[in-house]
């Protein structure tokens, strides 16, 4: 081994040590615990995994996470893209972008509390305290339990809060790329008679594809571990359970190390495809360089 490659390794070793201690070892330990029983001492085989996939509440959580993945990712990336493209043309662009990005500055728990008040329900014969029900009643309707009505209303109400928080982030990321598209390309397309819709779908969208992939990947990773919003607003009740909330309950409320670790490993396995996709993209980008 030549002296040069040895010193290369020296630079990397501290990072590798930290990675090994804080990432690899806990991951391996979690996998070991997931094969153990409630206190982590006995051996329970795959019974915890069987629980994670057959228990009715866990199945409801898995279904809800799928719903979150579909709606949240489409919502944040789609709305972020729309905002990035549309706001580019208006004078008040900076203010609008600041307002849309503002929810990212609020803690996720704080957002949950804010929207819990907005969704608040009081019976029809008394004054409403929630903003949304206040509007509904003022327009002549009956108040709705936004966080109670299952299975769609309350889940969509929660997902909307998630979208409200994260759209600003997607918008900022996509806007940076959008501004990088040469204006001359779009101008010439318009001169050639393309409608705005065609300009968007045939020029803008393909050029932004890699950034959209990045934004979508980030949102996917965020949504698979969604916890704060659900925990604060409904604590997973009324059919809104998600995997991360179950993991928290199993670990800290029921003190069942085996089941909590099994759920954590399931979450890890769910994220692996996203990670592989990410790595492939990095390799492709490196190959281009």
């Amino acid at each position: 081994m030549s002296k040069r490659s040895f010193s290369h390794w020296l630079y990397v070793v501290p990072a590798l040590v930290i990675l090994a201690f804080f990432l690899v070892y806990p991951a391996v330990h979690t996998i070991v615990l997931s094969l153990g029983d409630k206190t982590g001492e006995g051996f329970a085989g795959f019974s915890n995994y069987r629980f994670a996939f057959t228990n009715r509440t866990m199945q409801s959580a898995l279904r809800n996470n799928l719903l979150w993945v579909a709606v949240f990712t489409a919502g944040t990336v789609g709305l972020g893209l729309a905002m990035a493209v549309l706001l580019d043309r208006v004078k008040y662009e900076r203010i609008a972008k600041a307002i849309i990005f503002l929810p990212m500055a609020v803690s996720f728990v704080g957002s949950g509390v804010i929207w819990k008040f907005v969704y608040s329900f009081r019976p029809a014969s008394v004054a409403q305290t929630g903003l949304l029900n206040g509007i509904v009643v003022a327009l002549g309707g009956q108040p709705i339990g936004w966080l109670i009505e299952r299975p769609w209303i309350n889940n969509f109400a929660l997902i909307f809060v998630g979208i409200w928080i994260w759209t600003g982030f997607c918008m900022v990321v996509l806007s940076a790329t959008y501004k990088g598209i040469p204006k001359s390309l779009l101008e010439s397309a318009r001169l050639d008679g393309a409608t705005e819709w065609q300009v968007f779908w045939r020029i803008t969208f393909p050029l932004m594809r890699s950034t959209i992939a990045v934004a979508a990947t980030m949102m996917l990773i965020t949504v698979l571990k969604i916890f704060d919003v659900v925990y604060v607003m409904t604590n997973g009740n009324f059919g809104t359970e998600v995997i991360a909330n179950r993991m928290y309950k199993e670990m800290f409320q029921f003190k069942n190390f085996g089941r909590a670790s099994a759920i954590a490993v399931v979450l890890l396995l769910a994220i692996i495809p996203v990670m592989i996709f990410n790595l492939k993209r990095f390799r492709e980008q490196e190959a281009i360089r």
Partner: protein
Amino acid sequence: MLRTAGATVYDQWVAHDIAWTDPLIKTAFEYFGDIVLNSNYVFGGATGALTTNFGDSPNDLFVDPPNAYLHHQASFIEGFFTEDFPGLVPGTDYGWFVTPPIDEALGTPAFGGGNVVVTFSNSPEAQALMRYLASAAVQEVWAARVGFISANKSVSPNVYPSGIVRAIADSLVNTSAFRFDASDLMPEEIGAAFWKAIVDYVGGEDLDAVLGDMEAAY
């Protein structure tokens, strides 16, 4: 469960000697559902029941005009609503009664929570202290403060601060049977699953499915 099936079945239920899908448990749930799921009986209907915080719920009795006239809760709730409505006079503005029997033969067993004194050592000194703490003299000191009802039959009823607490204490020491809250006695995951089962049932899920899930939680 105490009113419809009796104390013995209650104990079996807590110990899981009978299944949750047993008709006796289903009957108890249905009695509960007859009231909670009926929007003419519950203020705000099932949605109101699910969204109202338990500490705030008696407040609906004391607004003008009242939104409800009856409230089912343990005796500690007096502290909650007297704090929100300081001018209330016990006996005039509010009263209480023991939940009537459902099955006359089973009567009205008492049901509640309690403070438990636990010793870690079995020394004679620890035992003497335990006996002293359970004695009427000490219990009367505790009972003179609001909210504490003594299980000691020798405690004089006059130490209680109000007529209502006195009456409640009287019903406790003269009851035919007493049981602790079932969900507290069950293991933690089962208690939490029980809570979720009630919420799901009030939320409109099918009772047989809910009870089946409870049975599968063990």
